[in-house]
């Protein structure tokens, strides 16, 4: 009996791993000159627009008024010098209030009763405040502060006009106490005690039953601190974008509070109270502010705020942020989307898809390989674009002496890496859409309408904020929130609007919206690719 040996090819069996598939897709991507050029164009456009923004940034010394129609928008005053105070955490702060103070040596406490808080403010008419207006965050209370220097550490208990009693410290921190407004019928008792580095705040409605609101440790507080009464009232900010031009209304307000039952424990070496209008450079009005004391009753009027400065267009801080250097992201995104769409549609156009699917019949893996290749390429391009734009533009702005919001490095890193992630995700989203519709023109249209147009509509004035607010929550464009330049503070009223870099969703929530859209599109693409005849 003879055994028949079946024929076996002497050629080595081809490997069919995912790595080979990735390599095949990578080869396809690299060998099309137009696609590589497209990514280079994305980098150049993004970085170029960043340079344009930095080049045209107004130097701090010549910036006086911007779009403000009702009263000028304040900017830095001294040329070439940092004109903003920095708080203990390194952030830019506003430190303006009227301070009726005495030094407090060592431990001690101060207790007061606030019986009224009234306001004055409105459009400036010939430099005078007119009308009566109480902004929700006007503050009156007691404060313990490391001297009267701008940006020094502090802790304060205060009654506000719209948000009840609060304890605030070191500019960015805020804790609520008793709710409700102050009036003669329902006064607010406030107390601060110092024990070493720890300041504890208490509030009470009747002066007998006290509630602890919070205790904070102010590191490095000197043994003698300034303590006393303070009143301040932030600027009235509004941004009406339904006008033909962006219209920022930003006008000063004043508040007056009445205090009595001032009592102190501990060592207070000075005999009398000192009234100080604590203010930084370029302060607006100091007419009207001051205090007078009749017996144990203090009437104090102040203007300003003790709070972090909010940067960006239409706000009080520097109006250029790192986010503005990345303005070109949307243009880079268009270039990357064109490449990503063609990475898939070119296969259909040339009939290459049949070869691709014959070589690798598991279609889901083909889609995955394509997504990884285009995502990685777009991430690298996005990283180069964002880092290039930020580094070059920062350098130019620095040399021009423009006033730029200083970003702590973790935020800067989040903005740069986030921009790269946004571009990478957008590329994968485009690839999935292109797989679904199979035509590059339709794919590009869908991506631009959902990802780019909501962002574009939010940029210039003239579109109602309500419309863009809604679009920037549900469309993939929500991911632009990754470029938010600074936290949004609940206790600071400001124009948290898209032109200033504030999107309706928090940075990573916005990114999650794009991720969700990408997953949905990829799932649909995978399903259709498998079910449909190529």
């Amino acid at each position, binding site marked *: 009996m003879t055994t028949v040996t079946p024929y076996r090819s002497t050629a080595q069996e081809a490997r069919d791993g995912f790595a080979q598939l990735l390599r095949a897709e990578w080869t396809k991507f690299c060998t099309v000159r*137009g696609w590589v050029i*497209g990514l280079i164009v994305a980098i150049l*456009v993004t970085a170029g*627009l960043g340079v*344009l*923004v930095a080049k*045209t*940034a*107004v130097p701090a010394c010549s*910036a006086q008024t*911007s779009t403000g129609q009702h009263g000028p928008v304040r900017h830095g005053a001294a040329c070439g010098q940092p004109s903003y105070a920095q708080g203990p955490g390194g952030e830019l702060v506003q430190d303006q209030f009227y301070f009726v103070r005495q030094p407090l040596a060592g431990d001690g406490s101060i207790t007061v009763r606030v019986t009224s808080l009234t306001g004055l403010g409105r459009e400036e008419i010939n430099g005078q405040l007119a009308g009566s207006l109480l902004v929700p965050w006007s503050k009156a209370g007691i404060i313990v502060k490391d001297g009267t220097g701008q940006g020094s550490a502090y802790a304060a208990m205060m009654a506000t006009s719209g948000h009840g009693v609060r304890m605030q410290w070191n500019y960015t921190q805020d804790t609520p106490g008793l709710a409700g407004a102050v009036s003669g019928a329902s006064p607010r008792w406030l107390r601060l005690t110092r024990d070493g580095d720890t300041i504890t705040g208490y509030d009470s409605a009747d002066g007998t039953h006290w509630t602890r609101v919070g205790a904070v440790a102010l590191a490095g507080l000197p043994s003698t601190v300034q303590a006393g009464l303070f009143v301040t009232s932030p600027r009235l900010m509004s941004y*009406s974008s*339904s*006008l*033909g*031009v*962006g*219209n920022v209304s930003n006008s000063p307000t004043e508040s007056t509070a009445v205090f009595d039952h001032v009592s102190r424990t501990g060592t207070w070496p000075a005999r009398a109270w000192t009234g100080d209008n604590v203010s930084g450079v370029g302060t607006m009005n100091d007419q009207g502010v001051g205090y007078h004391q009749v017996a144990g009753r203090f009437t104090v009027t102040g203007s300003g705020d003790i709070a972090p400065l909010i940067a960006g*267009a239409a706000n009080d801080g520097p*109006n*250029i942020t790192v986010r*503005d250097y990345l*303005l070109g992201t*949307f*243009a880079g995104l*268009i*270039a990357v*989307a*064109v490449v990503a*769409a*063609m990475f898939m*549609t070119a296969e259909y*156009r040339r009939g290459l898809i049949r070869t691709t699917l014959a070589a690798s019949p598991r279609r889901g893996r083909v889609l995955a390989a394509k997504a990884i290749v285009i995502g990685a390429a777009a991430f690298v391009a996005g990283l180069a674009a964002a880092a290039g734009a930020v580094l070059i533009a920062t350098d130019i702005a620095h040399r021009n002496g*423009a006033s730029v919001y200083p970003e702590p490095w973790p935020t800067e890193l989040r903005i740069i890496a986030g921009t790269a992630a946004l571009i990478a995700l957008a590329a994968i989203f485009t690839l999935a859409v292109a797989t679904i519709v199979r*035509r*590059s*023109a*339709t*794919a*590009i*249209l869908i991506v*631009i*309408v959902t990802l*780019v*147009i909501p*962002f*574009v*509509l939010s*940029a*210039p*004035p*003239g*579109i*109602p*904020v*309500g*419309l863009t*607010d*809604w679009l920037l929550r549900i469309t993939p464009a929500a991911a632009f929130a990754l470029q938010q330049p600074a936290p949004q503070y609940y206790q600071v009223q400001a124009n948290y609007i898209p*032109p200033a870099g504030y999107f309706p969703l928090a940075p990573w929530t916005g990114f999650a919206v794009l991720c969700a859209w990408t997953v949905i599109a990829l799932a649909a693409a995978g399903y259709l690719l498998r079910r449909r005849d190529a």
Partner: protein
Amino acid sequence: MSLPAGLSRAPHGGRARYGRETLHAEWTKLRTLASTGWLLLCATAVTVAVSAAADAAATCPSRGCQADPAKLALTGVQAGQAIVAVIAVLAVSGEYSTGMIRVTLTAMPRRLTVLAAKAALSTGLVLVAGAVAVLACVLAGRLILPGHGFIPAHGYPPPFLALSHGPVLRAACGSVLYLALIALLSLGIATAVREPAVAIGLVLGLLYLFPVVTSVIGNQHWQRHLEQIGPMTAGLYVQATVNLRRLPLTPWEGLGVLALWAAGALIAGALIFRFRDA
């Protein structure tokens, strides 16, 4: 060597008839594509929907809010133009995608006539769709805006947003012309670059670049100049009906800037089309 009769010369009947036949052929191509109708419908719907949403989101709480109701009611043009651009791009690039362009140019060797026919037809379609969309936008504005504070007491006397009012008529007609010019600009760019995705990316990048950049630029001198030369920023001046003196250009001058862009793109596209191998 002499070419067969009819290839290089116009067929019997001369130029006019040749032109008419080219137009007819292009019309047949455009008409029988399902995408044309869908995209036109989509452009109209998006324009009207975005405008209505903008109307609903707008408020004029007190006297002197200075909002421009015409510009507000026509906000959707800024989104609808993207689809108009796609319609025009596909009229040219679609043929390159399928290789149809070789058949077209064999049948009608006069390339500039082909381009002119394509331009005339897509512009005509966009004019019709644009007119419908703009009328609907104005109507939506008239219905929705008075409910959001745009009332005589706040400085909006009747007739509110009436087309008989000169500036409103200019804004409405200007917006239709604006869309037509966007179509021509897109057609020119598409003829030059052929690839539909690239053409759409270029057109929309060019349009949206200027408003985004000018919104952030701090230097007012640069801001003004960029607004003046941007095809979208300048072109949309035609929608302004209040505070005209604050505009860097008059409304019609602004539309003229867009017309220059469109003419430039068409000439560049025509030259490349004329001398390049299809």
